Each structure stands twice: as structure tokens, then as C-alpha cells.
């Protein structure tokens, strides 16, 4: 199923998913040639982030994590300035002070990005507190991984959100399972006694919904209800979006184990390689989204090919821009401690 949106908006969502995919692939390729440090990619979760964050508007805040690239790109950030930040360049969103873990862009609604597990949860709750007390109808979105639910900050924050009926959506992207586990119906985080994870929110008396994070329609509909509820002052919602961990995320450093994505896999089954065939056929939400767009006649293969060529070029240009950009002057290290 597809989100209930006009075709042009759906095609735009596919474009954003491809921007994220090509960006992360370009980053992994770049890291093969040079040491750019540890980083985390969003491949395999595009069908969650893009439809979910498409519901936000100016003034809404999103708090993300170490795995932030896809979220910020989904809100329209410039891939070139993102990559420049990841390489520590002067032209990066944060002039090289943050790097991959801390990309922040106020103009896209990302005031700060905490890479301390669970660090974003109190902050996101506090932004919702401010929206509530200021009487504006903005919402705060707290993106977190399943591991963050193991932190005490989760319980302290969600209690406050529930008691104060704050306008916040806790969107947990559970990518902890591999395909076999998903088929077996296993969903808890590997080191969490509570199961299902929605129990961790429902005890605080708020809607707690588990969805298939690769099903863009389910993501969009559930998130839409949650955002509307928050804007209306009806309080927080917890959503667990279950996605299958991309095989390339299994190693400590991401690797293109499934190869660079061939969009032809959306319409040509012969394009799907034998290795990781299940991933390409059923677990990759981006490919699924493209197939649904084709099936419903919102686009045609040649249009997807054109979009893909354009975003691939965008990613390549971003790499070149980041590589060509200067580092900040060393003494800049001493600036920006205080406003």
C-alpha cells in the first residue's frame, strides 16, 4: 500500500529516498579510499523516515541520533553541506565542529543531534514542553533506535510527556532484527526484557503502535494520526517502526554487501542478484515503494531512471564539493564555545 497522497508527492518521496540511498552509498565508497572515521548509515530505513517526516512543517523540531543522515536529508538538507560536515570541512552545516554524529541544522528543524544513546529523548521532550507552554501547535519528533529504550532517560522523559500531555511523537526505528528473526515474529531489542517494545510506552498511558517500517502507507498513516493528535494538544504517541537491518550494517564499518542499488530491481526481477535476493525482494522498503508506485501507475521505469540519474549526480557532486572544500582554520577550534 502507498500513503494516501497525490502521485507527484509520492514520486517526490521516492526521490528523497533515493537521495538518501545514493548519499549513503557514496559515503561508503568514499570511506573505502580514506579514513573518515566511524559513521552510521540509514540504508534500508528510507521508507520509514521519508513518509514520517514529510508530515512536519516549519517550526517543528526533530531530534535524531548517530544514524541521522537520512532524517536530515528527508527534511530537505543539502547533501553537499552534509558530506562536507562529515569530512570536517568549513562548508559543512556545522563548520566541521559536529561531524557525522552531530549534524544539526536549525533551518531544517534539527537544533542539535546527540550521539549519546538516549541523549535526544529528554531534549525532544523539552522542545515539546516549550511548544506546549508557548501555546503554539508545533510538534517535536524524537527519533530513537530500539537500544535507546534501554536507557533510563527514556522512562524519565516519557513519563513527563504523558503527565503533561506534550506534543511529541517518539518514533522508534527498530532495526535490530535480521530477516530470519522478523519472519519468526521476534521483535524485542536484543537486550531488553520487555516485549513487545510498545509495552514500554503503553504503561505510561499513551497510544503505542508497532508497525512495519518498510510499509510506507502504514508509516504515513500512523504518523499522521500521531502528529494530528500532538498538534491538537492530545498528547504523545509511541510508534515502533520495525525494519530489517540492512546486511551492510552488520559489520562495524558499513560495507556495500548488497552492492549499489540497481533501481531496475523495481521492475526487472532478473536484475536481482542471487545473493541477498530476499533483501532486495522483500526487505528493502525503497525498492518496495518504487514497485508500488509503478504498479499504481504513478510513475514509469524511465522516470525512475531519470530521477535516479539526477540524484546519483547530486551525490557525486556532493562528494566532490566536500573533497574540494577547505578545512576550517585550526584556530577555529577555539571559537563557538559561547554565544
Amino acid at each position: 500500500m502507498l500513503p494516501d497522497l497525490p502521485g507527484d508527492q509520492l514520486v517526490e518521496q521516492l526521490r528523497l529516498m533515493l537521495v538518501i540511498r545514493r548519499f549513503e552509498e557514496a559515503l561508503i565508497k568514499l570511506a573505502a579510499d580514506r579514513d573518515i572515521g566511524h559513521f552510521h548509515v540509514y540504508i534500508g530505513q528510507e521508507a520509514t523516515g521519508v513518509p514520517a517526516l514529510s508530515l512536519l512543517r516549519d517550526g517543528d523540531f526533530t531530534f535524531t541520533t548517530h544514524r541521522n543522515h537520512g532524517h536530515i536529508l528527508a527534511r530537505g538538507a543539502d547533501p553537499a553541506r552534509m558530506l562536507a560536515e562529515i569530512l570536517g570541512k568549513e562548508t559543512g552545516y556545522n563548520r566541521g565542529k559536529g561531524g557525522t554524529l552531530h549534524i544539526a541544522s536549525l533551518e531544517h528543524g534539527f537544533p542539535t543531534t546527540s550521539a549519546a544513546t538516549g541523549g535526544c529523548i529528554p531534549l525532544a521532550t523539552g522542545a515539546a514542553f516549550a511548544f506546549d507552554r508557548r501555546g503554539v501547535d508545533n510538534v517535536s519528533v524524537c527519533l530513537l533506535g530500539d537500544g535507546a529504550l534501554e536507557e533510563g532517560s527514556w522512562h524519565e522523559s516519557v513519563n513527563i510527556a504523558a503527565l503533561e500531555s506534550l506534543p511529541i511523537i517518539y518514533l522508534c526505528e527498530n532495526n535490530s532484527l535480521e530477516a530470519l528473526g522478523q519472519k519468526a515474529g521476534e521483535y524485542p531489542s536484543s537486550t531488553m526484557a520487555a516485549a513487545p517494545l510498545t509495552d514500554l510506552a503503553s504503561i505510561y498511558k499513551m497510544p503505542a503502535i508497532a508497525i512495519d517500517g518498510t510499509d510506507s502507507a502504514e508509516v504515513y498513516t500512523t504518523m499522521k494520526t500521531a502528529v494530528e493528535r500532538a498538534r491538537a494538544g492530545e498528547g504523545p504517541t509511541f510508534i515502533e517502526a520495525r525494519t530489517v537491518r540492512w546486511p551492510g550494517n552488520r559489520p562495524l564499518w558499513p560495507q556495500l554487501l548488497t552492492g549499489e542499488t540497481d533501481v531496475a530491481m523495481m521492475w526487472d526481477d532478473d536484475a536481482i542478484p542471487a545473493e541477498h535476493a530476499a533483501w532486495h525482494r522483500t526487505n528493502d522498503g525503497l525498492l518496495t515503494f518504487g514497485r508500488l508506485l509503478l504498479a499504481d501507475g504513478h510513475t514509469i521505469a524511465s522516470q525512475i531512471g531519470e530521477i535516479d540519474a539526477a540524484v546519483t549526480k547530486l551525490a557525486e557532486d556532493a562528494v566532490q564539493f566536500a573533497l574540494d572544500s577547505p578545512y576550517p582554520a585550526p584556530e577555529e577550534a577555539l571559537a563557538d564555545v559561547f554565544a
Partner: protein
Amino acid sequence: MTDILYAKALVQVLRESVEHDDRVHLMGQYFLGLTHHREMMAEIRDNYPERVYYPPIAEVGYVGAAIGAAMAGLRPIVDIATASFIFQAFPQVVNEAANIYYMSGGKTKVPMVFHFNQGIRGGGAAQHSHSPQAMLWNTPGLEIIAPSTPADVLGLVRTAVASDNPTAWVDHIKLFDVTGPAPEDANYSIPFGVADVKRKGSDVTLVATSWMVQKTLAAAERLAEQGIDAEVVDPRTLVPLDETAILESVSKTRRLVVADECHRRCGVAAEIVAIVAEEAFGDLAAPIRRVTADDVPVPFSPPLEEYIEPTEDKIVAAALSVTS
């Protein structure tokens, strides 16, 4: 100038902050601890109930929420109550608030104040007697104020509330009973980084902050009876620190004693004496002395507590040892 109680000045500056700026919200309620003065907070609670938030017992949650709220348009003054509880909130104070502006490359401001009551309060034992200001001082990105008089709490908190940076307000319940002159001008404020010479003198420089200023002023009077003319310098803010005022005083008196309620190792005193040793070694006519809490957890039993505490007697003895 009229005389005013410190606790009253504290409530006054909180009330005015709430009154003058819609963005100011109080989060937490133990600004005056469990002292009998706490009832004075009722005037803010009753007049501005929607501006005073009573959080659950959840320091990492509500202190972190204050930080998030500061990024989203409020200017919270968050009360952590007993300073030792800041450790429950440390991930948010130290790893989020202090870093946000820097990590964002100078884009995202965190205009807020963290208030806590630090120090050896009498019977607090090991888990309610901490002076975390040295740990916070070792955290770039936090401004730190440590008022010691009614006038200073008025002037420094006004500046802190107006500041666009996260500011730690080091407070002490023993200060609440101090009475002193305070300017009636509602616009009176004290710029950060400007020390106050609380007592002029020529024989020895005594540096202290917060409650230790009051003890040091008393010690200075006793020293005067013995013919020692001590100068008491109160930096008032640790970040930024008025190094010049300390160095100028030391160059005049050539002797330095620093009184500090932190533990000895890596305490506030350790940093101040390091600056003087680096910048003014040639001015010194005697070794520098530190009067601090000993490097043990704070004990409960009164004689044990007094034994490890930086007392007036110890300040007098240290000053005599460098002037004799």
C-alpha cells in the same frame, strides 16, 4: 541601598525574571531547599502557576527537558535542588547543554540557568554535600556564577537569565540567612567576569566564592585583630573568570590563600592557584595555601564533618602561616 535577606533577594530575582519575560519558566521547586524560607516561593507559585513546573523525581528527564525547551523558545531556570543530584542529570548538563552551541558550529543557543545548592550544609553526609562546581568548570561550554551576597544574587542572576548560554548557578543554603545591602534599581545587574574585592587589604589575598566568601570575611576580621590586613577577592563568576583582579591583588599583597568547599584535588582552589603560579610566580613572597574540604567523602557525624570542612579557623591559620 536597603538591607535585604539573601533568601528574599533570591525570590525577588526569580519573580522579576518570570514577570518581565514570558519565556522564563521555573522548572523544579526547591530553590530554597528545605529551609524555612521555602514558603517565600509561594508568591511566585500563586501569581504565576503556569510558569512553575513541578517535575517528577527524574533529574535526567526534567533537566534534559529544560535544555530542550531552551532550544525551542523558553528561557528555563531549572532547579536541581541539592547539588549532589546534578550527577543524576550529568549526561544532559555536561554532554548535551554544554556541547550544543559548539557542536552546531555556533547556530543553536541554549539560554537557560541550572540552580543548585552545593556544599557542606551540616548533616548532609556523603550524598548531599557535594560542591560540583569544579567538575562543571572542567566542562567547556557552561558559564558558572557563584553569588555570595544579596546584591550579587540579584545582579548575577539577572545577567544569567539574559544570557544566551547555559549557566550554572552555584548556590548555598547557608547563604539564605545572610543580610546585606541591595540596590533597589530593577535594572541593576552584574556583568560576568568582574570580580568584587569584598574587603580591601594589603598583607594577604584571600580568594573565595559562594558561602566561603562569608567565612573568609569573618576570618579577615579575626586576622585584623592580629594586625594582618587581608584583602578578600570574590571572583563571583568562575566562567568567565576575572584573572586580572586576582593577579592584581596578589601582586600587591604577594601572598595568596584560596578557600574553597570543593575537595582538594582538582578543586576550584587548585585551578586558581595554578593560574597564579603560572602568571605571578615572581610576585609571591610565600608559598600559596589552599583551604579546602579534605579528599574524603563528607562524613555525617558533626565532629567528623567539621574536621574535614574548610573552616574559618583553618582560613585564619593558613593566612597566618604565609604572613608570619
